[in-house]
């Protein structure tokens, strides 16, 4: 493993994790569809679920997409719950209708929900059957985004993991970047790595089905997001080799992440410095400006996107904040250890949630900034706390050098607002 140079004697990696198993206030994995369908331009996400699932997607999307989106919900009705044979037939009919209306669709994801899981509707079997029926034009895959199994960003993990077994095999030595990032950010990452002479570089998920990367024993991959645990496991199963590093948030995270890849590909120091020096300097400058309002302030993370640990590392080490609690819905120790190792011990690291108890802790600590979900933000603001909605961190380009200043800005704006407003 590629260890960062300046390890603290006692880091958060050694701290005990507070495990909570109470009531949660987080989205389910279906939510990932909102950004996945934008990224994969010939894919359709068909949730097999209830009116609640449809309503969740609509509420999370903010009803702001007025083109017909590439997702929908096949809402189970009473008659579907009565007999299983029926539900499969109904699904086949809805899929046939959808595909005839949308000939542009090349990949169809059947996405399981709580109701479809509870009634044990076998979507894998359905996907196999439908793939046969609609081959070679459309490939049908399935994964579960249900709230009884997945939390928010785990939906993306489940989706990408479902794609891995079907990726073509390759013996080429290629770098695979894993995670659905906005194109602008993805292009920056590829640009930096290419400038170091690293390549070929492939991305999962690809924008289109025919651009799907190959995978094999010579593939090395780097995760772009800390929540891709299942995808990570599936890629290992295919023989690919993981590059572990802190995640590319902020100047430090980006540099460490790039360095780990550069080392794997034998890039020399001089080349690495030549490629990164200018954007590093820009990122540092942008962060220091945006972070002025954050220095010396405290921050408290409610569990939401699983980005909490890398972001806490960024805020504490690059923006001068002090973390009180860093809560994550689920901690993949294997993936976030490099980030934890960089954070000096001190904050409570918590996994899972008991929302009322956690609210009590936040109220007692009165942090200068609370990072939380949309359901909690306004109530906490009304109690005088300053908040940052976590969901924006998932929808906004925040990775790599050129966005490092924006990332700091997302946190500093609410703090500055509090200082400016005089009503």
């Amino acid at each position, binding site marked *: 493993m590629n260890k960062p140079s300046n390890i603290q004697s006692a880091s958060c990696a050694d701290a005990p994790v507070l495990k909570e198993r109470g009531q949660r206030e*987080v989205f389910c994995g279906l*939510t990932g569809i909102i950004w996945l369908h934008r990224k994969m331009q010939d894919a359709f996400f068909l949730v097999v679920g*209830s009116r609640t699932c*449809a*309503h969740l997607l609509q509420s999370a999307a903010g009803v702001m997409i007025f083109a017909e989106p590439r997702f929908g919900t096949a809402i*189970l*009705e009473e008659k579907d719950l009565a007999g299983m044979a029926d539900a499969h037939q109904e699904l086949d009919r809805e899929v046939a209708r959808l595909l005839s209306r949308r000939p542009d669709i090349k990949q169809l994801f059947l996405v399981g929900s709580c109701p479809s899981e509870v009634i044990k509707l076998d979507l894998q079997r359905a996907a196999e059957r439908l793939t046969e029926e609609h081959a070679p034009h459309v490939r049908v895959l399935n994964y579960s985004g249900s709230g009884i199994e997945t939390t928010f960003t785990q939906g993306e993990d489940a989706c990408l993991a479902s794609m891995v077994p079907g990726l073509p095999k390759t013996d080429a030595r290629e770098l695979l970047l894993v995670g659905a990032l906005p194109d602008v950010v993805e292009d920056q990452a590829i640009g930096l790595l290419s400038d170091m002479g690293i390549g070929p570089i492939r991305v999962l998920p690809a924008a289109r089905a025919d651009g799907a990367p190959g995978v094999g024993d010579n593939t090395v991959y780097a995760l772009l997001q800390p929540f891709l645990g299942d995808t990570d496991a599936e890629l290992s199963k295919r023989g690919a080799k993981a590059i572990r590093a802190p995640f590319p948030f902020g100047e430090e995270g980006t540099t460490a992440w790039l360095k780990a890849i550069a080392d794997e590909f034998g890039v020399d120091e001089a080349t690495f410095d030549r490629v990164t020096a200018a954007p590093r300097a820009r990122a540092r400058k942008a962060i220091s400006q945006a972070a002025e309002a954050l220095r010396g302030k405290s921050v408290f993370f409610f569990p939401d996107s699983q980005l909490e640990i890398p972001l806490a590392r960024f805020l504490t080490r690059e923006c001068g904040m002090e973390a009180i609690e860093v809560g994550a819905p689920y901690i993949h120790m294997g993936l976030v250890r490099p980030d934890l190792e960089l954070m000096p011990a001190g904050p409570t690291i918590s996994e899972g949630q008991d929302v*009322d108890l956690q609210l009590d802790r936040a109220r007692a600590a009165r942090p200068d900034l609370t990072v939380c979900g949309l359901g909690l933000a*306004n109530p906490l603001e009304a109690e005088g706390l300053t908040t940052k909605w976590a969901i924006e961190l998932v929808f906004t380009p925040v990775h790599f050098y050129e966005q490092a200043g924006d990332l700091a800005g997302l946190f500093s704006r609410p703090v500055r607002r509090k200082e400016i407003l005089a009503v």
Partner: protein
Amino acid sequence: MKLTVWTYEGPPHVGAMRVATGMKGLHYVLHAPQGDTYADLLFTMIERRNHRPPVTYTTFQARDLGADTAYLFKDACRQAYERFKPEALIVGASCTAELIQDDPGGLAETMGLPVPVIALDLPSYSRKENFGTDETFYQLVRALAKPMERTARPTANIIGPTGLGFRHRDDVEELTGLLSEMGVDVNVVAPMGATPTDLTRLGAAHFNVLLYPEHAETAARYMEKELGQPFTKTVPIGVNATREFLAEVGEITGLDPKVDESRLRQPWWSKSVDSTYLTGKRVFVFGDATHVKASVRIAREEMGFEVVGLGCYNREFARDIRALGKEIGVPALISDDYLEVEKAIEDASPEMILGTQMERHIGKRLGIPCAVISAPVHVQDFPARYSPQVGFEGANVIFDTWIHPLVMGLEEHLLAMFREDFEFHDEAGPSHHGGHAPRPEERAHTGGQPPAPRDIEEPKSDNLGSDVMVWLADAEKELKKIPFFVRGKAKRNTEKYAAEKGMTQISKDTLYEAKAHYAR
């Protein structure tokens, strides 16, 4: 199984949440998986509530399913009671919990909590949000309201307003003022703002004002039967409906229905010359049944619009809306399928839509202005200023809201006169709306190619039958001279006329023959 892209209504437990969140001192324990907590953000973000909705979700997970989810539920109930000390609890299941059949009502009953526990049975796979509000409020009333002595002075309950309602906050204020001008005091407003204890006092009122039938009709009928309280049948949205409502209140109470109308400006605003441009505007009305009924009446009687299409998404009121359609000779669309509504609007090609936020998006796509008249709500539907729909101030607000998306009278004439002018071109849009992005097809024209002729009212003109109808060059040229805001209508009428005459080609003459034919 039914494929749905956007929905007008959430599941029924969201309806129950709207009742619980509107009230005070009530807590809802909902057996549901973690993802269902998204519903909190409807209240905290869209409505900008400064409190979490009073809802405890059990958030069971897959690993709990094999073990004991019933225990989880009881635990959540106990903790919710201890932490929030509500005056009453409502308990129920979301769609997933309905499948695991833990019977929240039965479980809660065995716990011996020291407050009333009301079980909700909301079938998630057959009913929707409005059923949830209506049923939840009814169950609360059934459990808590008792016959009792009437107040000495004439009083009314205002029933129907909930959390996340379309202008409910301001409607209640306006209505309270109207009633008080007539000499009627408000006994209880419910569910919004009421505590469970307040609900026990419902029986003291002389009658009920059923403000939103979607949310309280079952309760109104129950109270009529069990507590002997009549309820009002007219929803006071619009000038004429408000006057009719006041007359109804007069009949129930024996009070004089005359109230001060000096603040009412809408009738003169409709009659003043600038509003001539509103006359005969073709509108499509879609939303919840109550607001559609009110809007159709305002559109026809108080604005002088022509209603060319109407419908509602809540099936419970299909009969009323169909009857209304029959009465005005327009077929009614009862559908919660967004695509079907879009199709109907496209076919009717109105000059304006009175709809929900969904229709606002449809309007954007089709290039038709839209004013919002009904839930489902959006953050824009919770303005900071006072803007009721009910009563005389409501009528003023509605006038302003409806004309806002339109190009105003005088401006419309200027646009027609100077339509070749670079600033007054067809796409300038209403001048009070600020920046207008170029239309996408406009942006696509590059490389010196002249922009193709385009019809602002019919970006999808191939859907209007012109694929079988050929416009000759002279007719097409003439058509372009017609001001853009009537061009769509002219085109449609000409094609219809030509089709009736069995023609397949349209010449300049056909255009003017059709114009003469349809002259009014």
